[in-house]
């Protein structure tokens, strides 16, 4: 009898095994929805598939007469703009701070405790401060994303940069490299794929902070919409929106993974650490 730890599924059976829970979850929803519809045709909590499809399609195609825009499109554009700006600012400042902290012991001594202290503040707790200081506009929402994910990304990247073996830093110096050249030719290229990895890990929290900020004070956005229609128990709108947000998150994650493989093949080479 082989031990369970040694049984590895082949590619075909892996797809099959992975599909089982998904199919079960979908079936479970359908059964529960049908049961509730049979008991109460006006049930709003678990709408059937065709109702989800209809409501989702309405949000994605029909122009809202008040705003003059298609809600799903306007929400997606607004949310992605906030998310993109937040992620961009976070990634840029992480690259600079992570390299400085990881490479220069002087900077690590000076700024390390500050970054560590900021990292333990729960970002949502700062949200009222942001709204008070920055107003209810776009700035506060973007700032929440930046404050929420940058400390983690900086700490992750600086530890990755300082983990570059000392042998490499010494070798570069014996080849005549200055501090600037070490940063530019040694630390920066090796930091890039790690930065992308950190960014991928931060996508989930970034969405959380975006939706939290939109839920509290906004007039457009994916998070705004689902918290708005919650008042009417409109699960037929909320569920397609959640599915759409998940799809966007998966696409962004895979795009970053592709960029990393495409531009930093050495980090994915066989046998690489």
């Amino acid at each position, binding site marked *: 009898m082989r031990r369970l730890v040694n049984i590895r599924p082949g590619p075909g059976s892996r797809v099959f095994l992975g599909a089982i829970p998904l199919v079960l979850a979908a079936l479970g929803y359908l059964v529960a929805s049908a049961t509730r519809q049979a008991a109460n045709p006006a049930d709003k909590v678990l709408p059937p598939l065709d109702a989800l499809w209809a409501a989702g399609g309405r949000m994605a195609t029909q122009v809202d007469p008040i705003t003059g825009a298609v809600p799903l499109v306007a929400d997606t554009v607004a949310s992605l703009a906030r998310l993109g700006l937040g992620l961009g600012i976070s990634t840029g400042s992480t690259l600079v701070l992570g390299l400085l902290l990881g490479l220069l012991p002087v900077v690590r001594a000076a700024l390390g405790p500050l970054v560590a202290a900021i990292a333990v503040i729960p970002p949502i707790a700062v949200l009222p401060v942001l709204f008070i200081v920055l107003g209810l506009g776009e700035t506060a929402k973007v700032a929440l994303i930046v404050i929420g994910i940058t400390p983690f990304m900086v700490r992750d990247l600086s530890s990755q940069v300082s983990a570059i*073996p*000392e*042998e*490499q830093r*010494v*070798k*570069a*110096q*014996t*080849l*005549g*490299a*200055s501090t*600037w*050249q070490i940063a*530019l*030719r*040694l630390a920066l*290229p*090796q930091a890039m794929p790690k930065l992308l990895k950190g960014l991928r890990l931060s996508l989930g929290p970034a969405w959380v902070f975006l939706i939290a900020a939109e839920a509290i004070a906004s007039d457009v956005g994916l998070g705004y919409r689902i918290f708005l229609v919650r008042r009417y128990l409109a699960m037929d709108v909320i569920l397609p929106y959640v599915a759409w947000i998940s799809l966007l998150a998966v696409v962004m994650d895979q795009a970053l993974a592709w960029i990393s493989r495409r531009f*930093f*093949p*050495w*980090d994915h*080479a*066989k*046998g*690489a*650490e």
Partner: protein
Amino acid sequence: MSHPILSLRDVWVEYGDTIVLEKVTIDIAQGSFVSIVGPSGAGKSTFLRLIIGQEAPTRGRILMEGAPLVPEPGPERGVVFQRYSVFPHLTAIDNVAFGLDCAGSMFLGRLYGRRRKAALEEAGRMLEKVGLSHSRDAYPAQLSGGMQQRLAIAQALVRKPRILLLDEPFGALDPGIRLDMHALIDGLWREHGLTILMVTHDIKEAFKLGDRVLAFDKRRHDPHAPHRFGSSAVYDFPLTGKNRRPPAEILALASREPAEA
């Protein structure tokens, strides 16, 4: 003969209470191949770190060609470590060209145009010397351990260092590959008139390649406070063509248990 290329004068290295090296006084002549042996913990690596410039002596002076050695790594002292000597994000040819890039381009750290072409040609010749022409566009992760060390040697030699420091360079390689590497480094030493300092665990390798062998160990030993005495070069053998057999006391030194830290 003017100054020796490297001379250590009464050098001590202490970490707090612990004395690692004491009273080390050594002259190293231009063009010599010095093997450094000794039990684990005898300060061989510390000795090498001093010369690389990763550490400064607590007391004493280190002179390179008569001038005080700057306690910072520099291009006149090339180095090959046992591992992690090459840059994983650069192809073989770019690893070798790195030194030329740094020398030729202060702000961009990389040459362009005609100067880049010249640098690549020079790096290509270096790769050819170590037998890696066929792998010029491979990343280090795609190379075997022996090929990575060949690459590390080519990379170190491209800046034409005055001294080449080898820290157990072949320690992680298979015996057959190690023989190839011995032939390679011996050939480069003769051809370029290099001065080489090599730390090794392998006594046979030390006596085969070197023209001088330094053995590091503690001269004195206090069983109650072993850290209070440091190591120094206890044996210093010049080797000629015939005198290539390790003496008994060296073999005893190598087979001994590691010294307590």
